[in-house]
């Protein structure tokens, strides 16, 4: 077992992790909060980027939109990440080899890189953008990339629950959280699941 696998296994065996992942109330509430953040705060990321593209909110300055949404986006980000850490951490033994989860993590790292690259010239440079006669291409590039990365994160997040697990690779799966892997709608997955794990 490599060290990531060992760590993930260790993490998911902590008391808090087992209590959390096994809870019929707390787990879905945290998941619902994670999802509601997409609606409540994701929209602010969207509007910021649409403003940089010049597609909407044109009667507001870029400084106004970016400056006034910033604190709300930060609050949303903290709530979303806290919930995400609980969700992934408590079942780390099932997440660390999930390809959708790994792509999602990679996209989140790229979002960090995106911030480092574009903050100085775009997101912290809004007064200059407002003075420019047309929105500079680098601002539009930053906005387009940000939109693509965030839509990717949301899509991959949903797909995590569809991964059936690499049982064919011989990696042992713990008792799987029924609600995460076999939703009532996923009849095909249900069938596969019963085949693989008769008990």
């Amino acid at each position: 077992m490599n060290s990531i696998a060992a760590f993930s296994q260790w993490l998911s065996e902590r008391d808090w992790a087992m209590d959390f992942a096994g809870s019929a109330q707390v787990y879905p509430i945290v998941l619902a909060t994670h999802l509601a953040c997409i609606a409540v705060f994701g929209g602010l990321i969207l509007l910021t980027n649409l403003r940089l593209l010049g597609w909407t909110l044109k009667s507001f300055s870029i400084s106004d939109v970016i400056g006034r949404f910033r604190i709300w986006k930060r609050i949303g980000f903290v709530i979303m990440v806290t919930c995400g850490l609980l969700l992934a951490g408590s079942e780390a033994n099932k997440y660390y080899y999930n390809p959708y989860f790994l792509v999602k993590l990679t996209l989140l790292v790229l979002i960090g890189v995106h911030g480092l690259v574009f903050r100085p010239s775009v997101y912290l440079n809004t007064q200059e953008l407002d003075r420019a006669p047309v929105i500079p291409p680098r601002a539009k590039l930053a906005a387009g990339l940000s939109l693509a990365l965030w839509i990717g994160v949301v899509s991959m997040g949903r797909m995590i629950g569809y991964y059936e697990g690499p049982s064919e690779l011989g990696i042992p799966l713990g008792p799987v959280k029924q609600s995460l892997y076999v939703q009532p709608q996923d009849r095909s997955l249900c069938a596969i699941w019963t085949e693989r794990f008769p008990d």
Partner: protein
Amino acid sequence: MLFLQANPVAQALNSAEWVFPTAEIFHIVGFGISIGTIAAVDFSLLGGGLRRKAAPRLLRDTAPWTLTALTIVILAGLVLFLTMPLDYLRNDSFRFKIIALIFAIAFNYTIHRKVASSENISPPLGILVGSVSLILWVSVVAGGLFIAFVTA
């Protein structure tokens, strides 16, 4: 009622494995856009985000995005529903969600629109309408998620 579950649309939708997850992604990204733009107006009504007196302009600029995305969410939601209508109709969380959705849409296009598009919104009214709107829409999202967690 059984014809609902065995309807030709459901059979077509269930015959391909990618339909459900794809519709879900459209549903989620769509509600991110539609509810997100509504939430931006709510924040402004609450006195955070863009200033309260900017609410009418904010509403005017975002309304087409809200409506377009809401249409996409509902269409994608309809696809999800039609894959197994009876199971959804029996699901308490689904029923709660639909009721919350009806209230949320009705509120959004009556009181919310009227208040957000008026000049000089009084702070208590702004805070009340912004909070009710956020609570209604969060209830819709939470109700949707709980569909998978309640046993029908």
